[in-house]
């Protein structure tokens, strides 16, 4: 009843090309963005912003990047953790070596470092496909681990190999409080996600999808596979690199190479698979599932047990958390192999017909 598009007529091309053609969608998304920008910083606790929302935003950003490569262009990559690391260390080196460099250019330069690295490790994609490519990109991960552990130049010769940043500022405003960090990450995410959404709707996005669906056919109709694949690697690793820089600068503050271990590559891949391949929205769902759910479970389980008067040990909680989390992944993939984003769009489809399905 509420979600119906009757009477919404599109009278111009621009109206036809909107991201959200249905008015209710526009209102909902507008309200969500307003909520995220205004209500959350006012209402949410420090902990909620610092420990849950900031990681969620940063991983959403990284998942958008991975989704462009894996979901839209079909190039399975296990090197995402390495791209994050290159973004983080690149931004760090520019930030420290060029005194007075503002934060935002440093982040962008970090992203560009990741772009170069991504293109380099995207080259095998011109020859190998699918799982073979996944294994080839794994090399990026090992290479990055080796590089940041052994080449002291990247870590400014610190004896321990761990680096730190502080006194972050954006336009003269200190990035210290939880709300300011949250708003900064949110702004970066909003801008990049909007750009990414428009990119995948444009000609280049169509090329990526054509390559994903059948690269031989795409080549026959005049799409250059090299250009399409490498541009997907470039765009995706730029976004992942910026996310990595944010993770290091804003969330951790001090980090070592193991902060971007191969674990993160897998986690990001799971995010896009669970969230929904080939969907910007799905990246957010996936990030929420992988980042927020374990934390929520670890707090929820003792509360549930407490309700029944049982006190469970930390070990039991964390084992139960892993089991439930694993179970949920399996369940979601059985219920909807196309990810949470697909569930979302099915829900919307049903709402359109509600209450009179035919």
């Amino acid at each position, binding site marked *: 009843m509420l979600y119906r598009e009757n009477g919404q007529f599109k009278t111009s091309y621009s109206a036809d090309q909107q991201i959200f053609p249905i008015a209710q969608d526009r209102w909902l998304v507008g309200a969500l963005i307003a909520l995220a920008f205004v209500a959350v910083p006012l*209402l*949410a*606790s*420090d*902990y*909620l912003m*610092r*420990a*849950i929302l900031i*990681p969620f935003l940063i991983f959403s950003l990284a998942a958008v990047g991975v989704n462009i490569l894996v979901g839209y262009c079909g190039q399975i990559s296990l090197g995402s953790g390495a791209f994050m690391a290159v973004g983080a260390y690149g931004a760090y080196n520019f930030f*420290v070596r060029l005194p007075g460099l503002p934060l935002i250019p440093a982040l962008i330069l970090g992203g560009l470092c990741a772009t170069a690295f991504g293109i380099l490790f995207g080259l095998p994609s011109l020859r190998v496909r699918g799982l073979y490519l996944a294994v080839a990109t794994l090399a990026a991960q090992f290479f990055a*681990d080796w590089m940041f*552990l*052994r080449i002291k130049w990247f870590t400014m010769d610190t*004896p*321990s*190999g*761990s680096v*730190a940043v*502080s*006194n972050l500022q954006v336009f003269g405003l200190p990035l*210290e409080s939880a709300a300011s960090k949250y708003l900064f990450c949110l702004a970066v995410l909003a801008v990049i996600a909007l750009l990414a959404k428009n990119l995948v709707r444009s000609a280049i996005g169509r090329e990526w999808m054509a390559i994903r669906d059948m690269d031989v056919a795409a080549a026959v109709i005049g799409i250059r596979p090299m250009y399409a694949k490498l541009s997907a690697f470039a765009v995706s690793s730029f976004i992942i690199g910026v996310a990595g820089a944010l993770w290091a600068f804003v*969330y*951790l*503050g*001090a*980090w*070592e*190479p*193991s*902060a971007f271990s191969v674990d993160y590559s897998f986690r990001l891949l799971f995010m896009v698979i669970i969230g929904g391949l080939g969907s910007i929205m799905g990246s957010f769902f996936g990030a929420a599932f992988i980042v927020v759910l374990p*934390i*929520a479970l*670890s*707090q*929820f389980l003792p*509360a*549930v047990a*407490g*309700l029944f008067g049982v006190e469970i040990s*930390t*070990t039991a*909680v*964390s*084992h139960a958390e*892993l089991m439930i989390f694993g179970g949920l992944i399996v369940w979601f993939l059985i219920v909807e192999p196309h990810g949470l984003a697909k569930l979302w769009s099915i829900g919307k489809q049903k709402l359109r017909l509600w209450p009179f399905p035919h």
Partner: protein
Amino acid sequence: MKFRKIVLATAVAVTGASALVAGSAWAQAKEQYLPVLSYRTGAYAPNGTPTANGIVDYYKLVNARGGINGVKLLVEECETMYDTARSVECYERLKGKNGGAALIHPWSTGATFALTEKAPVDKIPLITTGYGRSESADGTVFKWNFPLLGTYWVAADAIVQAIGAKEGGMDKLKGKKIALVYHDSPFGKEPIPLLQERAKMLGFDLQLLPVTAPGVEQKATWLQIRQARPDYTLLWGWGVMNSTALKEAQATGYPREKMYGVWWSGAEPDVRDVGQGAKGYNAVTLQHGTDKSAPIVKEILAKLHDKGQGTGPRDEVGETLYLRGVVSAAMGVEGIRAAQERFGKGKVMTGEQVRWGLENLNLTQAKLDALGFKGVLRGPISTSCADHVGSGAARIHTWDGSKWVFSSGWIESDQQIIKPMVRSTASKYAAEKKLTARTPADCQS
């Protein structure tokens, strides 16, 4: 029935949501809140679990003794899986609860680095007993870090001295070859500056052999050792890397008597699997090793485990990692006690007050003995504004095939080498961060 279910579900959801949103609102009177970051799952669980048991048991014991001047301790564990990001999440979750955390033990080098940036903002002292960053010994720069009971530099220096003693004098080390097999992470790299300094001074040849985490693949490293035949090998490993190294040493035929580990490489889980193969292997212990007959261990057994209130298996009480947990918890408790002496006995202390207490610890041997640490800790452990370590003594213990036995007396690390290194590294950090060293007035606060 269905209605009840709905009510129950709502109640659960509300509890969960309020825990998330308003965690800091539940202040409780007269209870000192001490969060514990532990890792009982994940790759390093065999080492993390006994440590966590030790901490929790000591806090329980303090409560059984009547608290700190009547103030009971409220303990909450948070599982980090030894993951830096999870540790930061735990820290953020717990720091504001129940009136605020009085102190935090990060229990991982990665987390120590990340929290070092956050602690000054939140005004919560970090206690890193025998681990963490060595330069944080300088309290004038690292106001909130307390690497109590020794740093990795103290440990490395003690090992060099022990080797010197074995050779019959420090001058005999000239021309000797010493290899360092280390976990390729900030933790493993910590001793390198000190060893390089010592190598320069004493004229031995230092060979650095990194091992990639987690450390199960060491064939190439031990091939290098077989070729280079170092006179001594230091092991700076963690978790599964240690037992692998010992097995490789056995396979290579490298004498275990010539191997010296850091204390993270010198606990029961590291050698138990290797058993007789590790016989003769040495490890440095910062203050304590395994001591099952210590008064504190007996008291924990009598007051907690005999009553079924102990944490973890009874036969692990008094082992190295368990005691590390106990000792580090004790340092925190003594910091709170010292703070109470200045800011009011029987009151709940804030993080800032506890920092003052930790900075003014004066634990004489008599006090330590009275606490039950006779033979475990050596006094005096006394800290100051500039010195956040409090002690520089270590011992070596040796695995005899079934248990650890002390094989050396107390070794005092050479502060004339360590102090200038701490100073210069800390001031480099301060310069990078544009920090100014604390003034004498700040020291009094």
